[in-house]
């Protein structure tokens, strides 16, 4: 009887392999949950810090997003707290949009050349070069901006050379390889028979590219542009090195300005945790985070609308 019970216990017990399997499953799941926790942690931490400007220090949303004087801890001539983030927000959007507008035609042209016109040369020369350029650290771009672009802008357009225009130039070169390589991927994903069908109908090569290939790849190209813009918007050091870091509304493209990231990197080390100056910076970080989430959402939206039906 007792032996039977013992046996039953043994049979009911999980084998060593089964326990090992369970262990492995849980181990890999916990790694995944850790990443999930990090993402949640980042969002919660930055949101609580960023929102305390509004809840703890009682700054109104209007003053923050509408004000044009940024000098947290002091008051504007009209008696409000000087936490107007509008100059930085405008600066960030300006450099991002301008950089995207300038690089998009170049990027699409290059990608079309690489896939449709001269695939051999594209694969041999352009592909490795764009891959290398995607990997070049942003400080290097910033350094080149500082030693080449800023003097160039100063000589050609006057002013100090620091400003939105220099930032745009640097970001243009920075996001160009990103947009090119993603556009190439989406052009390559267009089935070959699309091109064959178009050429068989008597369309010229250009008509095929313009009316068939580019149309079919539009969602992919849009995703590439959004990715480039997200990279430009979040880029900190390269922009900070060439934009001049004056928290003023940009009057023109060559006057010193600032972006969300440039103020953050320059200011975070000089403030005391928990002070209004510091909280206001965290609010800028929160704006950055929200914009990054927005770009993500946009990519998802484009992807769902334009998924290739095969």
């Amino acid at each position: 009887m007792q032996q039977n019970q013992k046996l039953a216990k043994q049979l009911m017990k999980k084998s060593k392999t089964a326990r090992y399997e369970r262990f492995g499953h849980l181990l890999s799941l916990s790694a995944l949950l850790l990443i999930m926790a990090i993402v949640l942690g980042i969002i919660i931490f930055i949101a609580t810090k960023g929102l305390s400007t509004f809840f703890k220090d009682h700054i109104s949303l209007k003053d923050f997003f509408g004000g044009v004087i940024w000098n947290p801890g002091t008051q504007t001539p009209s008696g409000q707290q000087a936490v107007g983030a509008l100059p930085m927000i405008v600066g960030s959007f300006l450099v991002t949009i301008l950089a995207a507008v300038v690089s998009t035609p170049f990027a699409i042209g290059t990608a079309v050349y690489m896939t449709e016109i001269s695939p051999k040369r594209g694969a041999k020369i352009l592909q490795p070069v764009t891959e290398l350029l995607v990997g070049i650290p942003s400080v290097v771009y910033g350094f080149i901006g500082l030693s080449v672009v800023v003097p160039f802008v100063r000589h050609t357009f006057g002013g100090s050379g620091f400003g939105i225009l220099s930032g745009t130039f640097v970001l243009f070169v920075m996001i160009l390889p990103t947009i090119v390589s993603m556009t190439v991927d989406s052009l390559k994903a267009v089935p070959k028979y699309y091109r064959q069908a178009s050429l068989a109908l008597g369309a010229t090569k250009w008509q095929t590219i313009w009316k068939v290939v580019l149309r079919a790849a539009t969602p992919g190209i849009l995703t590439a542009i959004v990715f480039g813009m997200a990279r430009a918007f979040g880029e900190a050091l390269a922009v900070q090195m060439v934009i001049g870091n004056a928290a003023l509304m940009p009057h023109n493209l060559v006057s010193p300005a600032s972006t969300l990231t440039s103020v953050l990197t320059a200011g975070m080390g000089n403030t005391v945790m928990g002070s209004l100056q510091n909280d206001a910076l965290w609010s800028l970080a929160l704006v950055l985070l929200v914009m990054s989430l927005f770009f993500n959402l946009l990519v998802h939206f484009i992807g769902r609308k334009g998924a290739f039906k095969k």
Partner: protein
Amino acid sequence: MNRTQKQSRTAILILRLIAGLVVLILAFLIGYIFITGLPNVSWRFLTSPAKAFTAGGGIGIQLFNSIYLLILAMLISLPIALGASIYLNEYAKDNWFTSTIRTAIEILSSLPSVVVGLFGFLLFVIQFNYGFSIISGALTLTIFNLPLLTRNIEEALAGVSDDQRQGGLGLGLSKYETIIHIVVPAALPGIISGIILCSGRVFGEAAALIYTAGQSAPALNFGDWNPFNIDSPLSPLRPAETLAVHIWKINSEGIMPDLTKVSSGAAAVLVLAILIFNLSARYIGRKVFEKMTSVN
């Protein structure tokens, strides 16, 4: 030649010009970095410490810090990324849980690195009280590195054919044993390429480090390899300015007379390192593959 043919010719000519222009810009960039930078690179430059006020400083400590941080960050992130990608590729079912996690990883990979750096500052430097240190920097770089590394490893795992899995299961191995003993080794070339490519990205990162690993590089005693001494190169609690941070730092507030020389030299070293990472990723991956497959 009719009108549409002419139009086609002109358009293609314009496309060629655009591509040519882009090649020129890119060639100028790479040429500029190497031509202005490499003449300043010497063995002494690579090994001597930086100088704050006088000319002739090197990048020795910064280079060491970059490499040390890279190794630490990779050591921490590799097991996590491997586990996560194993789960995503082998266990995960196609449900809301999986898609939520995939979205979370995407969000993490698209976060600006300065935001990741600020989070690291908040959590490791202030909350955990590690201060500006190697360990804060390595943990922050881990967060920065995780999403891309996970995606790269997952792609490598997905490239392993299902026959291999069925073979393992058919021999009576459990799923996890199959993964560890068959799938992961088979995916090793891809995993190694992925690791090296991520290394290049981590090596050049600066924005995530300025408020975590700090912006100063105190002198190190290279004779002392006890990690518990604060001036030992291995000490995890010392502040550690990396090469990329150094370039940013001296260009924003440096006052040494040979600033341009130092930064162009450092930039060339950085880009050269990335180039080596890129090239070796392909080469080593292929070599490992050849070695693994020719044995049998």
